Structure formats: C-alpha cells, structure tokens
C-alpha cells in the first residue's frame, strides 16, 4: 500500500491559489420548450455551471405571471475549475404556458435564462443523430470536421431530416463543464450538416438545435451526445480562472479583476494536474458592447501562486477577458479566460 499523492491531491484538487471568486458560467434548461398537456408530469432539469470556489447554488423559477418557486440545486460533478449543479422541476398539465425564467445565484452573482413552457399538441420532438468528428486524434492547427443529422419525429417512431435549420457547434475543454458556441452551420436538404473548424484544444464537442424563430412552438430543441476530440499539441496547456467584481454600477467605477494562471502538468505514470504558472504576463482585454473593437486595459504578472489582481475603470458596459500570450509556445501554450460582462448604468 502506498499513500498516493495524486489521490490526496485529487480530493483537494480544486486549485486554491489565486482565489478567483464564484462566477456563473452557464444556465441550461432541458427540455426547452417544456411540453405540457400530456398525460404525466414533465420534469425539466436546470443545469448551472459555476467556477471559482465551491458555493451553494440557489435558484427560483419565475412563472409568466411573476410567481416564484424555489429550486433545490445539488452538485452533480466537478472538475478542477468548475462545478455542475442540477435541479429538477415537474411541470403538470396545469402549468402556465408561456415564457418562464430560471434565476440562479451563487457566491454573490446571479444568472438567469428564459425558457418556454408549451402545450404538447403541435410540438414535434427533434433530435441530432450520428454526430461524429474526424480525425481523432488531430494535430493542433489541423482541420477538424463534424457531421450529423438534425431530425424531427414524423410518425409514431419515424424520423425525418430537418432541412435549412441552424445548428450550433458547442465545445467544452477537458476539465471544464461549461460549453461555448464555436460555430453555426445550416442543415442541408436531408437535415445533414457538416462543419470544419481548426483544432486547438482537446475537449468535448456537441451540436445543438435551438428551435429559434419560426420553429419556436413547433419543434423541441435538441442536443447531440458529446463527442471527445483529442488534440496533439507541442506546448503544455494553460488555463486562466478569472472573475470580475462588481458586476454592475456607475460608469468609470473601479472593478477588481482576479484570477489564476495554471499550466497542465502530466508527470509520467500519474494523472495530469494543474500547477500555478508564476511570473507570466497576463493582459486584460475589454470589448465594449457593439463597438466590436477590443483593447488592452491593463496587465499584471502572476505571482508564485499563479494569481493576479487588477483594478481598472469600467468605461461602459462590455466584456472583459484575461489573456496569456505565451513567449515560449513550444512549452506553454497561450490561453484566454472566459469573458466576464460588466455593466454600467
């Protein structure tokens, strides 16, 4: 028997250094729209991905008439950087049809998402099948091609292709739980779609049909199963945890941006781990809403614990992001943090 370090580390693997604050990375509702009117109750699940230190997630369902129902979130999964929380709610035949909201809060920040509750009649189920990617593994910088088919139920158990619909390609990196949209593609005549992206990072890909605009109320949304893509790259992967506070306030207030830069270390014969990456310059970028022009608003050098802290004026509402541009990409790859929106009133 051996006391194995990495297992101890696994139990405490949430990186404590740098101390980014809690952020809500995503709020998802499944299914959307929620089909009611059938025989039984329909259970919708609400998934929230948070980053930063562990914090309880609380949430409410807000009905079209503004009435609120509490949701009990339980943590389902976690990675070194993020946690996935899930709550369920059963919608009965008598639930109000219309636009609902799920409002969640964790560690002082809030997030919300709208979703639809609709009568089942006239709502056709859709699905994405045969979602594949190739090649796997792929070398960094090479092309990665996806294909799949968007279908809707036509008869009892017959499925037919849905042409001319937009499907979004979603990606989440290894060790992350929140997905980001990478590309959109329109389905062909048979409902098939194909897309090509440049491979940059290993992670999970999925395709999502959101049933927007004309399909709203006629088709359910659908998401494919996740498919993993392994990307061979020379330099070690890096990652930035990042949070910004306060989220809203007056123009030109000072906001604090804190986070930590990590590098993925893969010791032989051991599982990979994330070590703090010290004394590297990270830059804070600002993208004012609608302006489309990004600019660097500050920079900092990470400490021995990989942590950084910046205070900058918030000139207007916009997205902030921290980037690490590696000086030695053969050893340490560049990376970007998730974007954080700060608003002014």
């Amino acid at each position: 028997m051996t006391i194995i370090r990495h297992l101890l580390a696994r139990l405490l693997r949430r990186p404590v250094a740098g101390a980014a604050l809690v952020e809500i990375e995503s709020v998802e509702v499944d299914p959307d729209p929620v089909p009611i009117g059938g025989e039984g109750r329909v259970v919708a699940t609400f998934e929230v991905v948070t980053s930063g230190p562990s914090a309880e997630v609380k949430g409410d369902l807000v009905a079209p008439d503004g009435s609120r129902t509490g949701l009990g979130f339980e943590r389902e999964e976690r990675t070194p950087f993020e946690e996935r929380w899930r709550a369920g709610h059963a919608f009965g035949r008598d639930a109000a049809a219309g636009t609902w909201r799920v409002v969640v809060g964790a560690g002082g920040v809030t997030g919300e998402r709208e979703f639809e509750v609709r009568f089942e009649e006239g709502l056709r189920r859709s699905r994405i099948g045969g979602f594949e990617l190739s090649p796997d593994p792929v070398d960094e910088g090479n092309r990665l091609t996806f294909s799949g088919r968007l279908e809707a139920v036509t008869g009892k158990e017959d499925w037919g292709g849905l042409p001319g619909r937009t499907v979004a390609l979603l990606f989440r990196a290894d060790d992350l739980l929140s997905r980001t949209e990478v590309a959109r593609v329109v389905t062909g005549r048979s409902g098939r779609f194909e897309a090509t992206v440049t491979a940059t990072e290993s992670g999970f890909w999925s395709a999502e049909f959101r049933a927007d605009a004309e399909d709203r109320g006629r088709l359910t949304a659908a998401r494919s199963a996740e498919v993993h893509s392994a990307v061979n790259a020379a330099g070690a992967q890096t990652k930035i945890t990042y949070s910004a506070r306060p989220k809203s306030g007056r123009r030109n207030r000072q906001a604090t941006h804190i986070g930590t830069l990590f590098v993925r270390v893969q010791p032989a014969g051991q599982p990979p781990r994330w070590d703090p990456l010290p004394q590297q310059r990270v830059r804070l970028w600002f993208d004012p809403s609608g302006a489309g022009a990004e600019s660097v608003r500050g920079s900092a050098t990470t400490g021995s614990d990989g942590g950084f802290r910046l205070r900058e004026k918030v000139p207007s509402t916009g997205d902030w992001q921290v980037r690490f541009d590696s000086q030695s990409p053969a050893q340490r790859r560049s990376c970007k943090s998730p974007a954080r929106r700060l608003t002014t009133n």
Partner: protein
Amino acid sequence: MATVLLPGDPRRLGGYWLAGRLGEGGQGVVYEAYDEAGRRVAVKVLRPAGGPGDARARARFAKEVAAARRVAPFCTARVIAADLEGPQPYIVSEFVAGPSLRAAVARDGPYGPGELHRLATGIATALAAIHGASVVHRDLKPDNVLIGPDGPRVIDFGIARTADMSLTTTGHVAGTPAFMAPESVLGARTGPAVDVWAWGAVTLFAATGREPFAEGAARLPVRGGGPDAAGQALTGVAALLHRILAAEPDLTALGEPLRGLVARALDKNPEARPDADTLLATLLGHSSPGGAALLAEGTRTAEGLGPSRAVAPPSLAAVAEEAYGALVPADQALVPRILLRMVAPGEGGDDLPRPVPEDELLDGVVDRETAGRVLSGFARADLVVREGETVALAASALLRAWPRLREWVDADRAGLRVQRPLTEAARMWDLHGRRPGDLYQGTALETALGWAATARHHVTLNTLEKAFLDASRGLARVRARRRRRLTAVLAALVAVTAASAGLALDQKSSAERQRDVAVARRLAALAETSRSSDPTRAMALSVAAWRLAGVPEARAALYSSLAQPLRRIDPPPPVTAGARFDLSGDGRLLAVADAGRAVLWEVAAHRVAGGARGIGPAPDAIALSPDGRRLAVSGGGRLRVWDLSTGRPLGPGFGNGALEMTFGPDGRRLAVLAPGHRGQVWDALRGAELLDVRDERAEGVVVSARHAAVLLDDGRYRLYEPVAGRPRGPRRLPAPGGGRADAIAFSPDGRTIAVGRGEDVRFWDLSTGRRRGSVLEGASAVWLAYGDGGRLVLTFDGTGAGLWRADGGGLLAYSTPEDTTGMPDIRVAAGAAGGPVLRYLLSGGRVATVDAGAGARSTVVSPSAVAAAFAPGARTLAVSPAGKGPLLWDPARGVGLGPPLGGTPSGALAFPDVRTLASVPAGEAPGHATTVSLWSVPDGRPLRRVPVAGAGSVGGLAVGGGVLAVAPVAEDYEPVRVWDLARGAEIPVPRHSGWDVMAVSPDGRVLAIGGRDAALVDLATGTVTGRPFGPVLDGVRSIAFSPGGSAIATGFHEAGVGLWDARTLRRTGTLAPEEGRFDDVVALAYSPDGRLIATGGTSGEVRVWDAGTRSPLGLPYAVHTGRVLALAFGADGRYLYSAGQDGTLRRYTIDPERAADEVCARAGGGLGDDDWRRLVPEAPYRKVCRAT
C-alpha cells in the same frame, strides 16, 4: 546558422565543447561552442602560420589578444579566453546571436537612413572602445560586424594579421581586400586610421549593398581627357587595389551628416581622417569627443538596431529543447533513459558521448516505437547521429549546452559510473556464453546492487543487465554458504595464531567494518524491495542496516520506514480456498469460517481467541459483530448466529440465506442482502424478521440500533424504522438527500445518517431531518463507514480509502489498499501511538494495518493557512490563517502561544531573529501606507513598523544577518528594498524587481531573488548578478542559503533542486526527482550542519535529501493536503518541521537513533534470530532494537 561539425573538426578545445561550424575565414574556422557551465561562445581556431615565423606569430597573437581583452565591452564581442600555445591556437569570444552585416544586407537589402545611423554609431562606438585600449582592428569588414539582438557587435579585433594573410588566403569569407585602406595597400605603416577608413567603407556598403570600390561602384578620376589606361588594363584584385588608391567612392546614397563623415573617413590621406572618438561624438551630435559616457551613449543608440535584422540562430539548448518539446509527454519521460545511455561519465563532470548499439536500447529500456520516435526527432535536429548499428550524441557540447540533459547527467553521474562497467560486463558475460566466471562479485556486486536498488534517477537497467545482476546475486548466495563453512575452519586457525594479535585484531576490526558497511547497504536495499510485500520486515531490516553501519543508504531506509504508511500485513491461520473472513469493529479480530468450523483470530498476536464447530461445510457469507463476540453464518439457505466465546449457536437457523451481511453497531441486528436481492433486517439474537424489502431489487442494506437503509439498484435508497411486531410492518421514513445515495452509513449512536452521493458525503440528523456537520467534499464514496466511536468516517471511492474527521469534515489521510477485491472491508481505530490506524482485509484473509498519520506528528494549528514561517532553529512557528492576524506556535511542544497578533491578516511572514517576527498585510491596504510590522515573539507585542513608501502592498519578505528585504508591489513588482534592522536605516541597492521568492544570506551580505528573472544582489558592493541560476522555464520557485552561506539551493518546477557554490555560482549538483514523481519545489531548508536538505512541494510532499550525495533519504512524506508553506530543521537537527496550506504543523524525526527507536516501535521489534541468520549470514546476530 551553425552547421554540423565535419570529421576533421576538433570536438573539444580546453574547457570548450564544440557544437557546430559558424563560418570559415582566412585565419581559420569559427565554431559555436559551449563551456563547462553551458555558456554559448564562439571559438575561432587559428590556422597556424607554420615554419619559422610560427613562434613569432604566436607571440604576437598572444600580445594582441591580451590587448584585446582590455577592450571595454561596448559594441564589441568580448574575448573570453585564448590559447595560442597549443597545437591548435584558438580564441574564445562572446557569442553574438545574429547574422553578419554582409548576411543581413544580402537578406534584407541596404539599410535605410535611421538604421544606417544606428549601425554607423555602433561600429564607431566599437572602434572608439578598441582604439581606447590601444588596439587596432585592421580587418574591419561587413563579415566582422555581427547584428546581434541588442545592436551591432564588432568581432575579431586585435588579432594580428599581416598583409600576406589577407592577400594570399582567398576563397573564404574575406576573399578580397575590399575594405583595406590605401596605406595598407601600399604596405605602409598602418595605425588606427585604417579602421576609420574601413568604418567609412563598411557604412557605405551597408547603405548601398555594394562594396565601395567594387567595379562600377567608384569613379576613377579622369586625367588628360582619357580614362586611366593603367587602371583599365588591370583586372581582379589588382584592379580593386588600384581603385582603392585612386578612385572616389560614390556617396550619393548617404544623407548628411553621414555623407560628410564617410567622405572624411575615406580620405586617401590617413592624417586627414577623423579619429574614432571624433566619429562617435559627431554621430551622437556632441562637439567634444571622448569618455566612457559617450561609449555608453553610442551603445544605447546602436541597441535599437538589433531586433528587426537579427535572426538569432537557435542555441543548441533551444534546438534540443524544441526537439524534446515536440515529443508527447509519455515519450519525453523516456528521453532521459535513452540519452543517458549515450553518456560516458567522466571525472569531474568531464562527460563524453558514448555510441550505443541500438539493441542495447531496445532490450527492455524503451519499446521500438518510442525509441524510433525519440531518436528520429533528435536526429532530425542534428543532435543525435546514427552510424551503422549505433546511435550517439552528435556533439559532446550537447552535454554542456542543454541544461535538461546536464541535470539528468548530474543526477545520475554516480550511477552512470556504476552502470557503464555493468553494461560492458553484462555484454561480455552474454558474449562469452554467460559463464559464472564473468559475473560480478564482492564490492562490484554490492555497489551495483546498491545502486540498482536505491540510487537510480533516470537510468534503467536493460534486460541483459538485470539478468546479469540476478545471476551475480544468485552466485553470491551460493558463495556465502560456502564461505560460512570456510569461516568456521578459519576461526579455528585464528585461535591458534592469536599470539600475534595486535595488528591482526586491527585488521580484523577494519575488515569487520568493511563487511558491516557492505551488509548494511545490502539490507537497506532489501528493505526497499520488500517494503510493500512485507512492511514489518522492511522496517526491521532498515533498523538492522542502520545499527550495523550508519551509511546513507541505511539512513534512507530508516526514514522510508517512518514514511511508509503500511505497518504490517498479518496472515490468517491456515485455511482452504473456500474460507470466508470478517473483521471486528476495530479490526483486531478476524473471524474465519472454513471447513465446518469458525475461528476467532487475534490478528496481531497470531493466535486463536475463540471459535465454534459445526457451522456447516461451505458458508456463503459470514458477519462478525463489532465486538467480535457473535458470528452470523449463512449456509444451506439459512442464517445462524454463533457465540464465539462459548462456541454455541444462539438459536436455531432462520431466514433464507445471505449474499452479504453485516451487524449493526450494537451487534443485535443483522442487515442481510438476501438471495433474490431482497433487503432484510433480522433480530440477530432471536432470529426474528424486522424488515424484508422484496418489491425492488436491493443492492445493499445498512442498519443501526434504530434505523435501516436499503440501497436500491437504481441509485435510490429507502429509510426504515424496523420495529418488531408492528402490525403494519416497519415504518418508512422520508429519506434525506432526495432519497438518492451511492453509499450509506449510520453513526454508532444512531443519530446521524451519512449519505454518499456523487462526489460528496453529507450528513443528516435523523431526529430532525436537518442537515448537520460539514460535507466530505470529493469523497466519491461507493462505500462508507464510521470508525473510532463515530469520530472518524471512512470512505472508499473504488480506488482508495479516505479517512475524514466526522465533525470538521477534513481529510486526514488517503490510502490505496493494494488488492482489495470489490468492496473493501476497512476498519478504523485509534492507534497506540495516537494516530488513527486502518485495518482491512486483503485477499486470502490477510489483514493490512496502516498508520494513517504515517510517521509524522501532526498538529492542527489553523483551519487553513495563507503564509507561514519558522524562526531560526524552528523555535517558533508563525502561521497566517485567512482573515486573521498571525498565530504563534511552539513547534517542539506542538502548542499555541497566545492569541493572534494584531488584527490584520498577513500575506508574508519572516523571523529576522528568534525574538522578532516581521509580517506584512495580505493584499492592499487602500489609503494606508504599506508597512512591515515587527513583533516581539516572547510577548506578542508590536515593536515597530517599517513603512514601505509608494508600495500598494508587499509581495515578498526575506531576512538574514539583520537585514530585511522587501518586495514592494504597486500594480506590478517594484524594485526590491532593503533595511538594516539594527540601524533601522534603508540600505541603497541597485534597481532590481523583487519577487515573492527571496532569501538573504546568513551574513546579510547577499540577497537572492527568485522567479524567472532571478538575481543575486551583493548588498555590500551593490552589484547585481543576473540569472545566476541559469535560464529556467518557470523560474526559481524557492531559495535557501546553507547555514554557512557557502551554498545556495534553488527549487524549480518539475526539475528538482539546483545546488550552487555561492561564491563562484557554479552548479555543484542537482537534487533530481525520480521519474514520475515530479513536483514543484516551493519550500526548502538546510539542516543546521548543512548536510541535509528538506524540500516541500505544491502537492504537499515533504522529502529529505543528503546534500553530499544528492540522493533522497527515504520515501517522501505525503502528509500535507496542500502546498507546503515553510520548512525548518530544529536547532539540534533532531527533527524537521513543516507547515502547510492545510493549516497543519508536521514533525519528522531526523535523528537516526531516534528514528530507529520509532521504527522499532512501529515494527514491534527488530529482526528475529532466525531471520537474521537467513538474511545476514555474514555477521553475527545482534539485537538492534532497544528493550522498551
């Protein structure tokens, strides 16, 4: 760009290892080379003049090289060394990473006005410096101006050359005397003015891209209305020389003021040319020439030139690093194994490449594919060459130039010296038909075995070497038996000849000592190999080894015995394959049901404590009550409970058998997973059914004195209150946690239910239904149990067992049982030594006993810690918890010393002396000047504050010799500031940014700053040495000075620890992590005698190293559950202390005698007489453990 060395090229000149050819010129060949320390240099090997002029020429060379070394380093490549006496005279100069001016112009075209001005200024600066040292260059030309990353550098100055050298050696770089001054052409006496001419010509060349006196570039004066007939008739070199003497160069490409200056410099009359100082002053716009300030200004002006033109040829290290970086991590890990086989270790680090037959590599060292990938990657980069069946390093310079390879070699040098002969001996043995006579024996065998067992870092044995060692060891055993017989005969002879005793006795004791050393080494190696299979014996062997001889290997084995968590593995009584086992609540008793009888077995004492007969031939399952008194047996579709003290059944059989079963904490209720996956609870004493869940498929049943939980196969569970005789059956209760669970346990008092679901375990109060206590985060429990009377919770996640505090939720230990099959059967109890002890069943009924504390005393000093520091000699520990002022502890006694100091949480702590603590606030203090607070340690009183003006916060603190160094932060790290604490005055230091890793030498004279831009600041002279610890990817992560200040240890990320001579800054060694156990060394400490070094990592690992042999002393201690913040040895060196981010203080026994006693206590005694005779046949038995 350097090209590979050619067959006739030298491989080494003096202390320089040649790596490739940079160029070839009239005077010789220029090579890229590396010195001992890996510094990149240019080595010019001069072609000897030959004949009688040779000696004269050498003397002149020597004189002028000496002069050249006086030249101030402004825009010149410094001459570092020269050997003009040897058969191959050579000159070593600074390596300039960039193309020559000729190459730069050929590639990017002529220079524009701005760039040209900077270039001209740079060359003029160089000339002013060269002439200032009374040296004349005499061969300034575009090939001798290199465009480095920080501006132009003039090379090859001060090297004597005669007219015939330049004129007769053609076809190389120089080729033509295009930049020769008229007076040189005429063979007149030449002075500094020839260089000024050349400056003009070179400047013009840079502006036009053409040699100024090339055909068509210069106009010949027209005399008498016709072209110069003589000039027209000449061709080639003669025509060129004619144009130099007579033609006027075309200066139209130049703007003012350069044009006027170049025109004056190209005056045919040397007297009319300006001197270099004037050139420089004019270029810089000054009226008066001269002075070092001007040279510095010229250098600065020229610096702007570099980046756009300079494309530095990558250094050998960069090429190697790139080839290495291109490999996937798994292949990278095998690179040292492959490359180290290509190294023949020399004396004093004078290592050489060794051609390796490919089959040696493929013989179990690496697989063919990996070898192919690694070797072809390195071969493509010209780092490795294949010659027939062998592969070898392309240049020995790689051994100096590539820090990574150097570190591997340094770590294994001693081992390589053992392995090289071993490789050859094994090959010979194999080649000659594996004859016993070719095997190792005696010292050679001991050394090889000792190294193979303990001291390897990257080197692996191949299959042939292993076979050779095994055969050698086998033969040695046979010899030892023969020798024992022989010894008896000799003993008789010795008795007869004892008359001449004096000398003989001396010899004998010396021989005994040698024998004991050899035996101690062997036992230590044996201890390491048997550590996981027979931990008790490993501990006993380590003590025996240490008591025989205090060799480092024995000491290492001793420390490993303390660090090893597994204390013992006890076998069951003899059983058949059909035996069933269960442990009592504390794991001290083992019930064995086998062949119709049950035995209660005392695990540690190996004796029977009770039993029963007639329990049935082949039981399906058994359960032992926690107190070990009752045994439930399932067989033949019935259950029966036996009293093991009386050997009688409690009553008749009941129920319908069990797949699994377990008693409740009180031993009265029996939870049964019955056939058909029914969940049942029985009254064990009366055989009455209390619960039977048959409507859904049960996967497990847990029971307390009052409640029962049935786990269903779909992840749900049900909670019941089974009551005998209740008309409507057992009462079903709402199940906490949403009725979903992977694992369930009831506290022994029955009040709390622990529910493991997903990653976490949560607790609910069963009477109120409310959540209670904390969460066991990340436990991922598939099995759960309470232990030690409910104080501890044990979780199993399918891989390992976690031990947690039930109240605070903190993880105490995590262990991976070696071979539990399926669900574990783990018990936890308070150990005799205080720390918790885990006992669990291994296959075949063996019981493993594990000390969860694993050899280090643990004291919780704070829930968590941000910063920590030990006072000198570990007399006091200061820790800074998050959100509170620092706390003081007495590490030796493990007790707190009063309330927190002040109210401000601290970001960094340091003890200037045993009575004073320095602290700085964590984070920024808006509106306040940042101050360093000094506290009186004995009474916790504030002493004074040292304001750090202009700083928003302080990132790092270091103290030593009465000096306090502070790394202020305002936006970014600011220049470090230093105070003399005795005088209270700030000491002026050169500007260099501080960092949160710093150390001050014990005498307070030197400040070491870590990070990527590491530096040593001499506080007495104010000089700064940049990058003293080499270029490191992630910088220096920790620094410690040895107690005398003569050595410095630096911790790196994944690259171990570098050891340096503090005076010369030469690397004296490396503490290299073993393969696969890389860590980030963030804490370092020297023992008071400087012989040991302790390292602490980001992962919480603490380990001890022998500073002399640079080898690890024992297994790492895996005790902290987070980064190690501080390490210190006690003043007497008996203990090592560590403080971690997890808020614990740990103590490790370092004094080997004390460690031996502790190991004896853990092992329950030393080697027995029989074991000794078997394992140590060479030496007489001795008792190695003191009686306790």
